[in-house]
């Protein structure tokens, strides 16, 4: 459950990125966040990742009140999230399996669990046969699927994807979005996709939240790109 209550974010240079935002997302929902450049999408993501703190208002993700969360607790909060980036951010010198296991190792998971879990996650994203390949040997879509596998590695309740199809052609974009939908339905994960790709948003007919100048201007289930 995610709750933005009257959330504002003003940067030190005076830019108002979000202004009194109210948004509620239930567990297991799939939500597209859309809007033009400068609408506040990236700030919303940064607040959810707790890269930035809200200036005023309250932002709650499950039991974590992010406006009051101490720096010390941020890593433990982030273990509930899986993040997918436009540029994949994979280690080119690590194999597919190593890229995924890295996420588990980084939070101190035991080697035994890592060995058991990594093949299962690669199976979810359809890369079980590419475990030993390196990212440079994969297509853009496959690389993004590795990034998604990494995001799933620690079994997060919430997946945040920032322009996940931004570097992919339309066919691969469709494939990635289908995978996100499948993860949302079969694993009951909350998925938030930040995107500006109209065709995809319109195609999938999910909940669409449209931002403009730091305000929500539209929020509807089965919506279209505003």
């Amino acid at each position, binding site marked *: 459950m995610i709750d933005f209550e009257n959330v504002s974010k003003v940067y030190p240079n005076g830019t108002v990125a979000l202004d009194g935002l109210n948004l509620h997302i239930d567990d297991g929902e799939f939500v597209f966040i859309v809007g033009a450049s400068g609408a506040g999408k990236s700030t919303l993501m940064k607040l959810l*990742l707790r*890269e930035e703190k809200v200036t005023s208002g309250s932002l709650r993700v499950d039991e974590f009140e992010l406006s009051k969360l101490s*720096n010390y607790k*941020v*890593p*433990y*909060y*982030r*273990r*509930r*999230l899986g*993040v997918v980036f436009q540029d994949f*951010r994979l*280690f080119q010198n690590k194999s597919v399996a190593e890229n995924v296991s*890295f*996420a588990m*190792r*980084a*939070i*101190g*998971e*035991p*080697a035994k669990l890592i060995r058991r879990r990594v093949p299962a996650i690669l199976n979810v994203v359809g890369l079980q046969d590419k475990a030993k390949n390196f990212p440079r040997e994969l297509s853009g879509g496959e690389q993004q699927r590795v990034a998604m596998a*990494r995001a799933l*590695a*620690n079994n997060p309740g919430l997946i945040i994807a920032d322009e996940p199809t931004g570097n992919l052609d339309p066919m691969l974009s469709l494939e990635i979005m289908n995978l996100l939908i499948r993860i949302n339905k079969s694993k009951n994960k909350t998925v938030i996709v930040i995107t500006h790709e109209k065709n995809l948003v319109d195609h999938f007919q999910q909940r669409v939240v449209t931002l403009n100048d730091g305000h929500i201007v539209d929020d509807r289930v089965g919506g279209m790109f505003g």
Partner: protein
Amino acid sequence: MRRYSLTYLIGQSFKGLWRNGVMSVASILVLLSCLIVMGTFGLIIYNLNDNLASLGDLNSITVFIDMEKTDEEIQSIGESISRLSNVKNVEYISKAEAFERQKAIYEEEYPYFFQGVDETIYPASYVITCDDNAHFEELRLELEKMKDQGVSKVRYLADAAETLESIKNGVIYIFTWFMAILFFVSLFVIINTIKLAVSYRKQEISIMRYVGATNWFIMLPFIFEGILIGIISSVSAFFIQMYLYGFIESSFLAEYNIRLVHILPFDNVKYIVLGAFLAIGIFTGIVGSSISLRKNLKA
């Protein structure tokens, strides 16, 4: 409870050291050089202290008696000295004793020097120590006045003591400044090495952050890297120092016959030197990497 893999963290720090090859070697060399300079100063002070102590009570005055004085006259002079104010102790050294002492020191090396001579070539003497060093000079002047009673020469080491003491203080002063400067130089180089390591692993660190790695988990490999630099530098510095010390002790001093200087065996202090090197090296490594991380690892 989840336990972070220590082997993974240590492995990462070795990798980091390897990846930043040139900077790592530069850090090790700078820290190593600093430690050797520090060690050299430390050992100089250690030896100076020992040499000063081995000179005995430097505030003593030796009074030599005219060669032709009889035993009775010598004894009478001794009694007169004892009656002077500020005299703490008067030790009589006969001609025979003086001869034996000289033989003990020089006979092995210069045996010909003692051939055909006996104790008669040495004057008897009194070694006087004073109660209050502040009035040392007055006592010396009193003894000088006794030249008409049979005192041939008054020798004192106070000046030598002062000179040596001021040399020692000078060495300590320079040593302190050198230590401070070298410490900061080492720190600066280590900060830059770790900074490079952090920038090399920027993407890795950012992913670690997103998946929820704690700051300690992110920082520990870099701190270990700093510690490794410290350990490698200090152990290498120790062996180089040991070799240099041995070289000076065996070759240099023996060759130039600097008899006045007594060099203590390195074995006496080897554990202290190694311990001090490790302590300084590891401390510098930890402080250097921590400063670099504080500056470059902000969330």
